[in-house]
C-alpha cells in the first residue's frame, strides 16, 4: 500500500510483483524511435499489423512492400523483410514477390496518396487478378508527407492544405471509396475498413488484419484492409482532436465494417 503524492512513479517497471502485459514496442519493431508527428495514427496501425503477423506466427515468412508516404520512415525499424516500392507501385511489386515466394506472407503498406491517387490502377488490377496478397491502406485523406494536400480519398468538408476550408464537391469532386470499389471485384476475398481513433477500434484493427492475413495464408485471394489514421498535421487540427476528427469527418464517409469476407 502506497501513499503520498497523487502522481505515481512511472519511470521504471513496477517494484511490486506484476506481470508485464504489453511491452513498449511490438516484437517486430526494432526501436521505438521515429520521426512521425505527434498524434500520428500510422505508428498505431503499424503496431497492430506487426502484432498480427507475430500472433499468426508469420514473422519468419512475412515480406512487406512499402509505399511512399510518412509511414515509409518506419521501414528503418520494421523487423520483417521489406521491399521499398516507388510511390503507387507496391501492389505490382508485391505481386512479383508473392509469385516467387508462394509461401511468403506478402503485404503492402501504403497511404491513400500512394494507393488511391498515384497507384489506384495497380491496386485495382491486383485485386481483380485475385492476387493472393494483403494490401494495407493507411488512409488519412491527405498527402501527409508532402504537406497535407487533398487526395482522391479526402472527404467532402475535410480540411487539407489546398482545401483549407474543407473539400468542396463542386470544385474538387467526390472522394473514391476504395474499399467499396475493391469489394465489388470478384477477385477480392476479404475487404474491411477500420480505424485507430480509439483503443477498442485499434484492437479491432488487429483482428481485421489477422483475418486478412489468414485469407492469404488460406490461399483465398486478394485481401484488403483500410485503416483510417489520424494526421493532425495535414488536417490543420489541434493534435488531441485528431481521433475525433477522424471518427466524425473521415469515418462518416469511409464507413467502418467488413465489406467482404469469403
Amino acid at each position, binding site marked *: 500500500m502506497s501513499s503520498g503524492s497523487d502522481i505515481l512513479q512511472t519511470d521504471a517497471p513496477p517494484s511490486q510483483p506484476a506481470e508485464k502485459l504489453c511491452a513498449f514496442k511490438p516484437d517486430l519493431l526494432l526501436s521505438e524511435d521515429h520521426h512521425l508527428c505527434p498524434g500520428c495514427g500510422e505508428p498505431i496501425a503499424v503496431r497492430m499489423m506487426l502484432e498480427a503477423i507475430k500472433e499468426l506466427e508469420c514473422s519468419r515468412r512475412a515480406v512487406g512492400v512499402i509505399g511512399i508516404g510518412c509511414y515509409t520512415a518506419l521501414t*528503418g*525499424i520494421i523487423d520483417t523483410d521489406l521491399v521499398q516500392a516507388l510511390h503507387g507501385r507496391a501492389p*505490382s511489386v508485391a505481386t512479383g514477390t508473392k509469385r*516467387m515466394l508462394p509461401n511468403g506472407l506478402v503485404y503492402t503498406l501504403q497511404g491513400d496518396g500512394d494507393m488511391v491517387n498515384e497507384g489506384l490502377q495497380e491496386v485495382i488490377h491486383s485485386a481483380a487478378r485475385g492476387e493472393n496478397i494483403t494490401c494495407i491502406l493507411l488512409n488519412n485523406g491527405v498527402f501527409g508527407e508532402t504537406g497535407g494536400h487533398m487526395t482522391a480519398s479526402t472527404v467532402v468538408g475535410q480540411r487539407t492544405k489546398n482545401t483549407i476550408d474543407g473539400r468542396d464537391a463542386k470544385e474538387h469532386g467526390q472522394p473514391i471509396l476504395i474499399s467499396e470499389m475493391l469489394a465489388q471485384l470478384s477477385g477480392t476475398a476479404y475487404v474491411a475498413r477500420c480505424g485507430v481513433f480509439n483503443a477498442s477500434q485499434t484492437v479491432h484493427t488487429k483482428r481485421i488484419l489477422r483475418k486478412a492475413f489468414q485469407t492469404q495464408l488460406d490461399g483465398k485471394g486478394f485481401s484488403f484492409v483500410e485503416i483510417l489514421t489520424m494526421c493532425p498535421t495535414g488536417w490543420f487540427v489541434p493534435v488531441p482532436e485528431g481521433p475525433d476528427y477522424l471518427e466524425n469527418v473521415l469515418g462518416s464517409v469511409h464507413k467502418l465494417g467488413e465489406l467482404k469476407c469469403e
Partner: protein
Amino acid sequence: MTRVLMEGSEAMAKAAIAAGCRFFSGYPMTPFTETLEYFGKHLPDVGGVSINAESELEAIGMAWGALATGARAATGSTGQGLALMQESLSEITRAELPLVYFNMARGQGDYYQATRGGGHGDYRNIVLAPIDVNEAVELTQLAFYLADLWRNPVQIYGDYLLAHTNETVEISTMEFPPLPPKDWAVDGSLGGTGKSRNINPIGMSKLKHEIEPEAFWRRLHVKHKEIEQAEARYEEEFLEGAEMLVVAFGTVARFVRYVVREMRSEGIAVGYIRPITLWPFPYEAISNAAQNTQKVAVLEQNGGQMIDDVRLAVLGSAPVVALGGFSSDEAGFGIGPIHGTDNIRDRIEHGLAGQEVMP
C-alpha cells in the same frame, strides 16, 4: 544439342529461360509482343511465372518484386513502353537489383534513352545490342550474368528485324564464372531476428536513420566506373589501313558489316567497328582505331545520337561524319530503306567522298 531455326523474339526468350530466368512480365507492343508470348507459353514449363501485366508500369513493378526475392526476372517493351518505366529503371538501378529488360525498339532512336536514361539522377544501365539472333542468344545469357555480377540492370537493345528474323541457333545454358550468393534477397526468413532485409533504392538498411546519400551515390558511381572499365565490348573488322572507319550498332551494323566486307573485297579501304555494349561504350577501342584512319563515319538509324559517343571517343583526332539517318515505315515499326545493302553502300560511298548524309 543441334541448331534449330527460331525467330529472334523466341530465341531470346528461350535463351533467357536457359539462363535461369524464372519470371517475366510485360505488356504487348509491337515488336516486343512475340517475346512476351514466348515467355507466356514456356516459362510455366520450367516452373516459372509469366504475367501479362495490365500496363508497362505494372510490368516493371512485378519484375521488381520478383527480383527482390533473388529470382532471375525480366521485362521489356519497345522504347515507348520503356519510357513509362524510367522512374522504375532509375530506382531499380539504385536498389541494385539485377533486372534484365528487352527493348525491342522501333529503330535506333532510343539510343539516348538506353545509354543516358530518362530516369532521374545519376545511374547507368548496361546495354547490349546484338547484331543478329545468334549473338542475341549469347548476349541474353550474358545479360543475366552481368546483371547478377554487378547487381545492375542490363538492357538488350533489339529491334523489329532482330525480333522477327529466323535464324539457326543453338540454345543451351552457357557457363559463366560463379556468382556470390544472393544473401540480400528477401524471403521473409530473417523477420524478427533484428537482421531482416530492406531492399531499398536509397541504400537504406534497418535502423540506419542516418542515411549517407553522398556515400551511397559515390559507391554507385564507383561501381559504374568499374563497369566502364570491365565490360566494354565491340567487334571490328578491316581496321588495318582503313581510310574511313564506319561505326554502327545492332541490326544496322549487320548491313554495314556486309557492305564493308563487300567493299574490302573490292579493295576499297574502309573499316568497321561495332559497339556491342552501348554502355559502357567502347571509347578506348574507337579512340585507338581513330588514330590510324582519316575519318570516322557513324551510321545509325536516327537523327544522330551515338555520334555523341563516337565524338567523345575520337575527341577531334579525326573528323567524325554522320551518314544518317532516319529510316521508317508507315506503321512506325522502324523498318526502312536503311535496311538495304544498296542504301548502306551508297551512304558509305558518300562518306568516303567526304560528304555527310543528312539524317
